[in-house]
């Protein structure tokens, strides 16, 4: 593994499988224990550096780090980014001076984690950068697919929605390609990047044509600002053409699953009865997120203890 996790594309197939296997080990090591804690990263410091609000991702990383006994510092830098206030570099130097072993960064600017990695000695983990990538989301999605369907290789995966602005889509396309799944991205043409033809996936504008052959459907959130950005005429038309409702869900193969990275717009890209159906993995994705992030922290920080043999420690 590299020292940093900046892009899902940086992971080799072996790296990616190692993360998924390690996440499974984490789950097994904690299964049935009353005290969900491993001593692996005791004495190590993980900084959650969030320039954007994201309670769910920050909490997920925080729980993951704490379950590995790391010290966690939440550094909320919202509003201090970009042109106002302290620069990203100064923030990096501050964290460096405090002696952080890993920095988990969420930022509204694509590539901000890459910049940070130039100024920090510890590991940088990209927890979502602008419209670029969100690699741990892709890892937890792959982990969820594997747990539900038993495999990732050979799966037909449809990723549906605002691909243009989606870091989840970019990371998933790269990781799923590495792992041998076949991805089709489905969106109105206005929400696909012009350069999408170079991506290792198929592209469709027609959700109804793609659903019957999909093992996995991943619905992307429609950001509120896009609803009024002129990318599609109305939210209602978007839902009609690209929303997943019960009727459309019925056209999926029997074992197909429905995923969503959250937070959902019920009634826009996903109908409530779909989100709450047995096909939905949305709640599992959250739980799996913790396991996968434990695995990433463990592997990047070079945990020295064999997880499977780890003893419980008092909290």
């Amino acid at each position, binding site marked *: 593994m590299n020292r940093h996790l900046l892009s899902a594309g940086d992971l080799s197939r072996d790296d990616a499988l190692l993360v998924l296997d390690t996440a499974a080990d984490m789950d097994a090591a904690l299964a049935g224990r009353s005290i969900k804690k491993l001593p692996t990263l005791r004495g190590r410091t993980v900084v959650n550096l969030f320039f954007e609000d994201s309670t769910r991702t920050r909490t997920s990383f925080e729980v993951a780090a704490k379950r590995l006994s790391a010290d966690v510092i939440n550094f909320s830098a919202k509003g201090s*980014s970009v042109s106002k206030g302290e620069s990203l570099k100064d923030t990096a130097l501050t964290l460096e001076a405090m002696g952080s072993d890993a920095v988990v960064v969420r930022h509204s600017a694509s*590539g901000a984690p890459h910049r940070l990695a130039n100024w920090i000695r510890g590991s940088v983990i990209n927890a979502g950068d*602008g419209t*670029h990538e969100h690699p741990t989301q892709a890892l937890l999605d792959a982990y969820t697919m594997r747990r539900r369907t038993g495999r990732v290789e050979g799966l037909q995966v449809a990723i549906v929605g605002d691909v243009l602005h989606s870091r989840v889509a*970019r990371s998933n396309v790269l990781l799923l390609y590495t792992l041998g799944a076949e991805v089709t991205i489905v969106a109105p043409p206005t929400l696909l990047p012009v350069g999408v033809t170079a991506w290792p996936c198929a592209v469709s504008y027609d959700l109804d044509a793609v659903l019957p052959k999909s093992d996995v459907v991943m619905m992307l959130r429609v950001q509120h600002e896009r609803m009024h950005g002129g990318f599609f005429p109305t939210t209602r038309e978007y839902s009609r053409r690209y929303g997943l409702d019960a009727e459309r869900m019925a056209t999926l193969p029997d074992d197909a699953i429905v995923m969503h990275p959250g937070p959902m717009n019920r009634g826009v890209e996903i109908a409530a009865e779909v989100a709450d159906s047995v096909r939905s993995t949305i709640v599992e994705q959250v739980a799996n997120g913790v396991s996968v992030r434990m695995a990433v922290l463990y592997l990047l920080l070079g945990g020295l203890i064999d997880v499977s043999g780890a003893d419980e420690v008092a909290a």
Partner: protein
Amino acid sequence: MMSRYVIRGARPLGGEARDLYVDGGELVEEAPAKADVIDADGLIALPGFVDLHTHLREPGREDAETVETGTRAAALGGFTAVHAMANTDPVADVAGVVEQVWRLGQEAGHCDVHPVGAVTVGLAGERLAELGAMADSAARVRVFSDDGNCVHDPLLMRRALEYVKAFDGVVAQHAQDPRLTESAQMNEGEWSATLGLAGWPAVAEEAIVARDCLLAAHVRSRVHFCHVSTAGSVELVRWAKAKGWNVTAEVTPHHLLLTDDLVASYDPVFKVNPPLRTNDDVVALRAALADGTIDAVATDHAPHALEDKETEFAAAAFGMTGLETALSVVATSMVETGLLDWAGVADRMSVRPAAIGRLTRQGQPLEPGAPANVVLVDPAARWTVDATLSASRSRNTPFAGRELAARVVATFLRGKATVLDGKAV
């Protein structure tokens, strides 16, 4: 302090070696007495370069560059004249500001500074600045540009093109449709899709180039296009020239050598407007410069303070320095590739830009009677760019660490050496 020189054995425009004699600020027939002798064996002599597009940042951003530091960098790059862009603070949109910049250039003395006047007040694109006052001022402005912004209102552009005919001016258009490039960060294509950076599509440049060719033809004026960066723009300029319309264009050195894949590092040193494009665009730009469709190389030297580049990519300023590397980048991309000979370099870096800017004392043949604006180039030199050694006050060169061909050895401005042995005098 008028100097006398014998430049021994230089090859004018890459031709046969001969001696050049400098006296009284001019090239002369006979070797002057008590002259300094410069051994120019193996060196190419070219007319001093003329840059149509330089940001000297003064007044307003003297932390990034001053007229003094910028023109020293220009001299080191072989330039004897630069056109200082109008997007200073205050904007060069009145006679007072252009005269100030003109005077600062005279005082610095490293190369001639010809201020560019803003087309519109405050570069705001709303109403014409006092173009006539700037033309009539001591700075004798002939090139007008809102560079950094496009004069996007078609009626305003039409009026500007018409108005400058009265004093033989030219509008240098920064061709960028603003609506198609809102928050744009890099070339729109495969790399922007991968990197999640908002795209700057080629069509946003080409639509304005096409429109302004038609406007210039309609009002029988001349138009110049700053930093054309796409294969499509090249085709449009070629088409307009074939029609006999008075259209000229420049290309930057960086668009001749660098491509948008460099942005994958997210290093803002590669952030520039217009953005680095694809290899197909680079090939088309080189071919167009070689066949004369593109008239001139212009640096778009855009110095920025460190803190404006050591940021997230989206937060960083657009622009690259380029004065000291221009000749070497042209040599690397055009001469070493066999696309352009040294006479061609002289034409595209001196003769034609001087003509576009209506500078009658620049870009002249290296013959007796001409002003002694001369640059000596070592065509065999190879050097690795070190940003810390730049004479510019800023360090944002995209060529740092790159090995380039050919190097400026000496520059003479009206007979006075501004650079000798590759060092500022």
